[in-house]
C-alpha cells in the first residue's frame, strides 16, 4: 500500500478544491466501479459541491460529474490540498 504523509478522506475536501486521489479503501468491487466511472488512483478530482454530511458532486476527466455517497467519500483517500507528494 502506498503511504503518504498528508492524506485526508475526500469527504473533508471543501468545494472548489482539486485533489489527487491516492487510495481507495474498500473491496475490489467498489474500486472497480469507481475506476469504470473514471476515478482511479493517481487521478485528480475537483469537488464541485457537498457538505460534511451528505453526498458530494465531483468533477473527473474533464466534463464528467459524479455524485458520490457519504459511504464512498469517506473511503477515498486524497492528498490534502496545498501539499505535494
Amino acid at each position: 500500500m502506498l503511504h503518504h504523509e498528508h492524506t485526508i478522506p475526500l469527504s473533508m475536501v471543501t468545494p472548489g478544491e482539486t485533489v489527487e486521489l491516492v487510495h481507495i479503501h474498500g473491496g475490489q468491487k467498489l474500486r472497480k466501479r469507481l475506476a469504470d466511472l473514471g476515478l482511479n488512483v493517481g487521478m485528480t478530482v475537483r469537488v464541485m459541491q457537498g457538505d460534511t454530511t451528505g453526498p458530494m458532486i465531483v468533477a473527473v476527466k474533464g466534463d464528467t460529474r459524479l455524485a458520490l455517497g457519504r459511504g464512498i467519500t469517506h473511503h477515498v483517500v486524497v492528498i490534502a490540498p496545498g501539499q505535494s507528494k
Partner: protein
Amino acid sequence: MTLTICLAGNPNAGKSTIFNALTGARQHVGNWPGKTVEKKEGRLSLSGHEVIIVDLPGTYSLSAFSAEEIITRDFILDAQPDAVVAVVDAANLERNLYLVLQLLEMHVPLVLALNMSDVAESRAIRIDRQTLSERLGGVPVIPMVGSRAIGLDALKAAMMRAATDHAAIPPLCLDLGAPVEQEIAGLLPLIEREATPYPPRWLAIKLLEADEDLLSKVPPALAQAAQQAADRISEETGEDADTLIADARYSCIGELVRGAVSRAAANPITVSDKLDRVLAHRVWGVVIFLALMWVVFQFTANVSAPLLDWIDGLFSGPVTRWTVAILGAFGLNGTWFESLLVDGVIGGVGGVLVFVPVLFALYFAIAVLEDSGYMARAAFVMDRFMQKLGLHGKSFLPMLVGFGCTVPGIYATRTLENPDDRKITGFLTTFMSCGARLPVYVVFGSAFFGAASGNLVFALYAIGIGVAVLTSLLLTRLVFKGKPAAPFVMELPPYRVPNPRTVALYIWGHTAEFLRRAGTVILAASVVIWLLLAIPVNGGQFARVNAGDSLFGAISRVIAPVFAPAGFGQWEAASSLMAGFVSKETIVSAMSQIYTNASDDLPAPQPLTDDARDIAVGLGEALVLTGQEIVNIVPRTVNVIPGMHMPEANLLNQPPDTGGDTALETALRAAFTPLTALAFNVFVLLYVPCLAAVAAMRQEFGTRWMGLQMAYTLVVAWLGAIVVYQAGLFLGIG
C-alpha cells in the same frame, strides 16, 4: 441476409437517440430473459440487408458489476453480432473510451459513433478524428448529433461496411505493465489448455481483475491460478491488480487522445454546474424535487382522468350496446355467449384500456425527467433521506406515482439501477393507496362516519405509508441483509432540453409493451372470473345465476370464515374482496350488486348516429378536460399552501361529483359496524392492489417475486384487519 448490429455505450451517451434515429417506430421494448433490464430491438433495411439493431444496456465497463454489464458482455460473446457501434459522448471522450478499449479487447468489428459533437464543439473541444481512428487501429470514427439525425447516413454506411467486410481490425493490445504482463503470460498456456469459449488474453485480464462472474465459470484450477497471480502482483507492486489494469487503460487513453483532443480549459464551470447549485442544493434541491413530484402526481392522477372516464364510458356504453344489438341480429340475445362477450371480454378489454391514459401521462413525465438529466439529481437530493429507510434516492418517484395508480408505480421502478432496490421499491409501492381504492373509503366513510369521513380517508393513507416504512425496514434488514446496498455513485449528465422524438418513442414503446404483456393476463383473468360467476351451484341456468348462487359465491362462502377474526366473515364481504382482486374500482359496483341486488341495466338503445355523436362529443369534452386538468395543476399546487385559495378552471361547468349511493349505504350500515367497516377498509388498503398490478409485478420482477408479494400483501392485510378489529373490541369500540 439478416445482420445483427448492436449499440453499446455509456449511460447518457445518447444511445437511445441514435437507436431511435436508426429504427424509428420499428422497435420493440421487452426485458432481457430472466432480468429486470430493458431490452430494445429494432429493424431496418439497409442496402438489401435486413438489419436487427439491438440496443444494449448502458454500461461504463464490461466487468461484472451489474446485470447490465453481464448482459452486454454475454451478448457480444454469445450472439457474436456482425458489428458493434460504440456510442461515445464527444464531450466526455476519455471516460467513454474506457469502454471502447474493452470492446476492442474482445475483437469485435467496431464503429465509433462520436455523438453530441455539437455539444463538444460548443465547449471548444476539438477532436482529430483521423488521428483517433488511426490510433484505434483503423476503427471508423463518425461524428454525429443523434438528436438531429446528423451523421446518420455516414454511420449506416460505416456499420454496414464493418458488418459485411470482415476486414479484421487488429486487436488492440495495451501494455499493462511488466508485473501484470508477466502474470498474463503465465496464465495464457493454462487458458489455452482449458479451451474456454473466451478470447484468451481478454479472459486472462478479466481473471486478474477478479471478475466474479468469470471466476465462477472457468475450471477451479484456472480460477485458483489467477487468484494466486493477482496476489503476487499486489505483493510485488503494493497495488491491487485491478487498480493497475485500470491505470494502464487510462494511461493508454491518455496516449490515444494526446494531440488528438484539445479543450479550451480544464474543468470549466458549466451551465449544468450552476443549475446544480440550486437543483442539487441540500435544502432547495429537496423543495424543488417535492414540487416536481407533486406535479408528476397531478399529471398521472388527474390529467389522465377525463380520457380514462371516456374510455370506460365507451366500453360500458356504446360498445356493449352494439355488441348486444349485433348478437341480437343472430338470435343470440340472452345466451351465455352474449354474457361472455359483454361481461367477460368487453369488460376485460375495457379494464385494460383504461390504463392507457394513465400510463401515457406517467411515461411522459418519466421520459421528460430522465431525458432532461433531472432524474439523477432527484436521486442525489433524496438520497440522504431515503438512506435512512434503507432505500435508494430514486425509490421516491415510484412510491409517489403509486398514490395515483400502482401499475405505473411498478413500472416506474425501472428508473432504479439495482435489481434489489427495484424489488423492494415495487413491494412498497403497493401500499401507497391508489386512486381506485378511494371510492371504497368514501362509500364507507359517508355511510358510517358522516362528516368525519375525511379522517377515515386520511387515516387509511397514513396506515399505508406506515406499513410501507415497516416493510422497507423488514426487507432491508432481513431479506436483503448481508447484501450491502450498492454504493451510491452515479453520473450526473449535463442538463439538456428533452428530445421530443425520444419522449414520444419512450411513451409509445412502453405503453405498447403494457398492452401486449399485462393486457393478455388481465383479459384471461376477466374471462376466468366471468366463468366462476356463470357456473351455478344450486341449480339454475349457466350464465343466469345470482352472484350468491354461482361458483363464485360458493367460493366466497368457503373463504368468508377466514375473515371472521377481523369482524367481516360474511360471504358478501368476501365476494366483494374477491371482485376487488380484479380491480379496486369494481369493489363498489360489486357491492351494490351483491348487497342491494341491483344490477346495472344497460342504458336504453339509441340510433347508431346518436352513439357516434355522443362518442365524438365525449372525446372532445375529455380532451378539453385534460387541458383543464393541466392548467389546474397550478391552482391545486397553490392551494396546498395554507390560507391560499386560487379558483380552478371549470370550462364545461360541471357540477361537483356528488357520489354516494344511498341504497348501498343503507345496506352497508346493516351489514357492518363502524369497527368492522374500518377493518374491512384496512384490508382493502393493504391487499393485492389489482390484477393489472400483479401482471406488472410479474413482468418486472418475475413470477416467483410476484407470488411472494401477493402472499405478503394478503397476510399483512389480513393481520392488519384483525389487529384493528381486535384492538377495537378490546378498547370497547364496536
